[in-house]
């Protein structure tokens, strides 16, 4: 019997989009992200006026921009998180190809804004950093390849993804942008780890890293000085790290008070790389612990949800996305407290920066899409499906 009859309603495959989204989304993670973004805006109010004053702009210029970009990022995040994993995969792979091409053409069309590394495309009103957009796309692409290799008779995806990683790492290292290169490498490593890297290989790799570090320490004076500076217990208070450490100490448990902080006047990167120091000084340890807890909740909770995931691709892609996110936050804060050697890295959703905000929105949107509740073949899922039928 045909259904092409006047007045019939189209067949709906399940619930309407929004209610289903709301029912299946990981609300805790999403709330944490929204909270982080809110804290970022709050800290922007504290940290960016000195920069605005220096550039002759009205005091809250950067906060306004951050709010606009943040609104866009949140919207993008919600839209992406509503998509099905298959659609996410398709769009992400397309996006990855675009970003890859953009990255490849950076040496030709990019600008370095006088900072010595060609990382940006200038669009006039804003600048775009392709490597930020490349990261989520790369994770999906690599996860797809790794997942494909686990199919019976599938392609050798591990080798393909490794080659792809190396090409991108090389391109990033040539800019040079070792931070992003390390992140890409790390993301692939984590995904490969979860995809079932042989234990022996991991041990050999760890040994290789230790050996390489020792060789670099013995042979490169630059590298050795940085490590020595990191290891030495006393710190020159006139360096960025010195100011940051002192700011954290000044702040104590409850902070020196809103707008009373001094470190933002001394640090050129107070609104990006050292925003945690501003937070610690003005709002105290309480605020910092809240921020750390938010990141920890997002990362650990997402990982726990992915543990239950049956689909290999979703598991790997989600792992890659959440680990990049977590490690970026970890490095940023680790540097500020001198647990890690100095390396510029933004704090996701908190630091100022349009590119990183929107790219972060996309990445977290994907993560939320991947961690949505979906049938995992458990008994209750099957019963639920029967009940719905």
């Amino acid at each position: 019997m045909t259904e092409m009859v006047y007045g019939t309603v189209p067949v709906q495959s399940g619930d309407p989009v929004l209610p289903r989204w709301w029912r299946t989304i990981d609300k805790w993670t999403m709330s944490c992200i929204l909270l982080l973004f809110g804290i970022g805006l709050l800290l922007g109010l504290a940290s960016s006026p000195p920069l605005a004053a220096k550039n002759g702009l009205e005091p809250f210029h950067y906060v306004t921009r951050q709010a606009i970009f943040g609104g866009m990022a949140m919207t993008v995040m919600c839209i992406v998180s509503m998509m099905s994993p298959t659609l996410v995969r398709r769009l992400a792979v397309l996006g990855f190809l675009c970003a890859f091409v953009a990255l490849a053409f950076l040496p030709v069309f990019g600008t370095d804004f006088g900072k010595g590394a060609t990382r940006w495309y200038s669009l006039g009103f804003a600048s775009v950093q392709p490597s930020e957009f490349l990261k989520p796309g790369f994770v999906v692409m690599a996860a797809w390849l790794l997942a494909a290799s686990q199919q019976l008779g599938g392609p050798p995806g591990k080798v393909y993804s490794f080659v792809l990683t190396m090409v991108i790492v090389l391109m990033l290292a040539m800019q040079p942008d070792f931070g992003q290169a390390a992140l890409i490498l790390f993301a692939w490593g984590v995904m490969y780890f979860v995809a079932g890297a042989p234990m022996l290989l991991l041990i050999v790799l760890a040994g290789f890293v230790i050996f390489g570090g020792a060789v670099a320490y013995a042979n490169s004076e630059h590298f050795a000085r940085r490590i020595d500076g990191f290891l030495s217990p006393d710190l020159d208070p006139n360096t960025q790290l010195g100011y940051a450490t002192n700011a954290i100490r000044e702040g104590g448990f409850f902070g020196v008070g809103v707008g009373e902080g001094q470190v933002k006047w001394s640090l050129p990167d107070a609104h990006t790389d050292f925003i945690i120091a501003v937070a610690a000084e003005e709002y105290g340890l309480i605020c910092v612990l809240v921020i750390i807890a938010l990141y920890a909740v997002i990362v650990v909770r997402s990982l726990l949800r992915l543990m239950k995931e049956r689909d290999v691709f979703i598991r790997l892609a989600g792992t890659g996305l959440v680990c990049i996110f977590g490690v970026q936050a970890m490095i940023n804060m680790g540097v500020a407290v001198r647990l890690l050697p100095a390396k510029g890295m933004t704090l996701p959703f908190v630091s100022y920066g349009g590119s990183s905000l929107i790219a972060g929105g996309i990445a977290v949107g994907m993560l939320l899409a991947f961690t949505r509740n979906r049938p995992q073949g458990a008994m209750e899922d099957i019963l639920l499906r029967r009940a719905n039928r």
Partner: protein
Amino acid sequence: MSRAPLRPLARILKARERGENPDAIEAENRARRHEAMADKQRQRAEGRLLVLGLAFFCAFGLIGMRMSALASSVPEEPRASAVGNPIIGQRSDIVDRNGRILATNLQTHSLYAHPRDMIDPAHAAKELAAIFPELDEAELLKDFEGDRRFLWIRRQISPEQMQAVHDIGSPGLLFGPREMRLYPNGPIAAHILGGASYGREGVASAEVIGVAGVERKFDGFLRDPANEGAPLQLSLDLTVQAAAEQVLAGGMSIMNAKGAASVLMDIHTGEIISMVSLPDFDPNNRPRVQATGDQSDSPLFNRAVQGVYELGSVFKIFTVAQAMELALVNPNTMIDTQGPLTWGRFRIRDFHDYGPELSTTDVIVESSNIGTARIAMQIGAERQRAFLDSLGFLEATPLEMVEAPTGKPLLPRNWSEISTMTISYGHGLSSSPVHLAAGYASLLNGGTRVEPTLLRRETVEQGPRVVSEAVSARSRSMLRQVVTRGTASFGEVPGYEVGGKTGTADKPRAAGGGYYDDKVISTFASVFPANDPQYVLIVTLDEPSENSGDEPRRTAGWTAVPIAAEMIRRTAPLLGLRPQVDTPQQVGVTLTSN
């Protein structure tokens, strides 16, 4: 990838037997197998994800703990520390042979500004201009209100100025500790010490580097922390140096000279006890190098080391000594002094006509150019050159100053016979007063070569022999006679047996060749005491003119000699030389009692 045959083949074989298509069964088998594999991988992934989650949890926990530890510690006042690449400020002292300070360091402060921290820039600029008259209030204000974050105001300030600036009370005016090189004796030994200035500068300290003289030559030693502040000891004697400078300055003004130099050297070791070059300067406030004009007239120019002059008749003793060493003459050999001596288109004349012949001793005593030239002809160019080389006249002195290599002697391009004759009486070869001092010391100390040095030498091994002891003694006796009955009669200093030779050389014209008629370099090269030689003293005046008589007198006997005599009179007691006084016959004292 090789495809392993699916194991449960039984069903497929049965299906084939039944003539059914086995594909569906094969697909089902494959799906089952795939599912089993996925389950296994999932279990493994579950474990690894748990590990990852734990790792992240621990990392975030660690950061949180570290944050708590930092937040609960007490903040430190920011303080300059020497992490990384510190500037080493400590510079060793320079002392004289008796340990008296020639150069040391003084703790001062530099003044710099952080305009952003200023509350009232206009007031600060006004007050600063009042404290430092050389600063311009309007310019300061412009700097303070501009967008500079940091500017130096003064590199070093005195304690009074520091207090005054402190009293302005502006938080944007800051002081940094700064070591300053201090020469407590002012211009004394200025040319030898040279001077110092700042190298790399920081707020916390600045590097002091030598710019000239021994400060530059021994920069590495003076800045080497391994010395642990051990001073650099020079051969100079501060009191002798001061006396020599005073005497030379006085003499220079009496003799209307435009410059003067003196070198006092230990005849056995070559240590330079005092070395003066006038005009001089204050190394605490070293003048800038002149951009134009003759550098050799600059106060920075060290006439004793860098200045090479035709020194004139003082060279005659080298010619005569060599001839005696070669046994060509003895002090009583009669030399033909009939003038003028014509050689090609050159004519050699004497100051006076000394008649047909003079003894060798009198050639020196009367200073006969013709006689000396005739002796030189017997020696010949080769041997003369070799002899002067053995005395060090052909190369720059090895003195421990950066300027020493620039005092390179000027030699004739072609050491011809006429050059041999003119060089025999000190023309046609230019050398510095230090060269001359070393030459005299080598010749007169018993005949062994000495190298001039500015460093204290406790012991010295004998250098290669230049002339025999006998020739050395005979030379000293001739020089002594120059003072007792010759051209240097003003050089007599009772008790010190001065011997010496005068030299008055016309100055070469600056341009166009030939010599000036009225500009001379007058030199007195002396040794004392002549019977037991201890020191060599060279005094050189540039363009002297003694105007007490009817017409100006410029010969060394009237100009350089009296100054040298005064210098010996002043410095010999300081050097610890006892005057050799002929004790008169002891008059018998008769105790009388009436």
